[in-house]
């Protein structure tokens, strides 16, 4: 029995030090975290999340936005919208954050090899997809056409703008950006992100789609992808529910028969399609 008690409690975080803080947008920032106590390599899969704890405030799930190929730090991008993220917003280099994870399922980046890849995302939803984009770019020749379709509220809300511009300018990659609201100064597209799907350059019958953003956006994006002929099983979505433990113990993130923290957050759409329909499930 003592051997059991000696097991590490998955609810206890490990201390990480903030190595860098980068302000991305007016309310969005990126933290680079390194282990505070001992050197250890960090591995995660694109789409996974960590539980981050701010001393005296609380703990929340935040997806990982860094490069899975870089093993000495973890990178998180988030918006300052709640107690914990607002506290993080005020933190600086050298301070400690508690980390548990990584948790959850990943974007099927390797399974998508040999297919076209369509990434449909909006707002902060680009953050959990960035690791997948890095991984695809690191092995670009393994994929067919790669399209990123990104929607933001206004031109000022475009996350990772420099990187989007860079991606558009390199390799064989279609990067399309649209915003909901803009003035005449904005030279780009105005309209919902789903509109980009209609004429994107991909073969719907040989396409794997990754969709991440607000649930309403995902519903309409999936509809449009399906209308174009992409199969529901080839569409992957990342869902958000109240994840408190990350390990399937606390029950808060249940969605039908799934624990979003453990069985998700990334699901093939056909596995959760009915749950998009039933309200308040």
């Amino acid at each position, binding site marked *: 029995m003592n051997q059991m008690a000696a097991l590490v409690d998955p609810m206890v975080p490990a201390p990480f030090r903030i190595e860098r803080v980068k302000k991305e947008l007016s309310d969005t920032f990126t933290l680079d975290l390194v282990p505070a106590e001992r050197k250890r390599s960090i591995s995660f899969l694109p789409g996974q999340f960590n539980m981050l704890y701010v001393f005296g405030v609380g703990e929340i799930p*935040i997806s990982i936005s860094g490069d899975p190929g870089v093993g000495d730090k973890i990178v998180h991008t988030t918006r300052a919208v709640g107690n914990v993220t607002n506290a993080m917003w005020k933190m600086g280099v050298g301070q400690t954050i508690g980390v548990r994870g990584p948790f959850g399922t990943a974007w099927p980046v390797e399974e998508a090899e040999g297919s076209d890849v369509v990434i449909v995302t909006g*707002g902060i939803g680009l953050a959990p997809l960035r690791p997948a984009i890095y991984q695809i770019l690191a092995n670009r020749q393994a994929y067919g056409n790669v399209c990123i379709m990104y*929607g933001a*509220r206004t031109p000022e809300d475009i996350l990772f703008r420099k990187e989007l511009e860079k991606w558009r300018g390199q390799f064989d990659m279609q990067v399309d950006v649209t915003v909901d609201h803009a003035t005449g100064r904005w030279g780009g597209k105005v309209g919902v992100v789903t509109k980009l799907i209609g004429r994107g350059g991909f073969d719907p019958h040989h396409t794997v789609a990754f969709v991440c*953003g607000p649930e309403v*956006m995902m519903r*309409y994006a999936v509809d449009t992808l399906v209308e174009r002929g992409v199969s529901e099983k080839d569409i992957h979505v990342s869902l958000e529910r109240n994840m408190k433990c990350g390990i399937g113990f606390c029950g808060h993130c249940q969605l039908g028969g799934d624990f979003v923290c453990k069985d998700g957050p990334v699901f093939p759409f056909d596995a959760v399609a009915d749950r998009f329909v039933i309200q308040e499930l």
Partner: protein
Amino acid sequence: MVQDMGLDKLIRDHPFFEGMDDEALELIAGCAANERFDAGQYVFREGQPADKFYMVRHGSVALEVRAPGRDSIVLQTCDDGDVMGWSWIVPPFRWKWDARATRLSRLVSFDAICLRGKLDADPALGYAMYKRFVRVIAERLAHARLQMIDLYGIGKE
């Protein structure tokens, strides 16, 4: 505005006209013309008579609302492949917005004065066209509603 033999094929291949019979397509192609707009040039202006509709071949046209003392507000852009403009079938046949090319844009325009008469005279053709425009209008309305709800205001934490 030079008549273009390639227009016929372009119209025939465009999803908007899919399923229309040859006679109708010929008629529509007869009303079509290529137009080119440089960046910043207006395709049409609010209040002007709506005597055309457009198909964007390449480029981007912003539908805008002018407001005094501030930058114009872009309602949406019409990009490659989009059909633009339906004020020509809705009385009083005047443009509701400005349309401005945000970069060099090549459009196909369709002469609505010629078309309106034909649609009135031939209800079957009229119905076929209306059906197609209703789809464009419905899609535009759906998109406008999604734009309206501030989709990204509530995002992942």
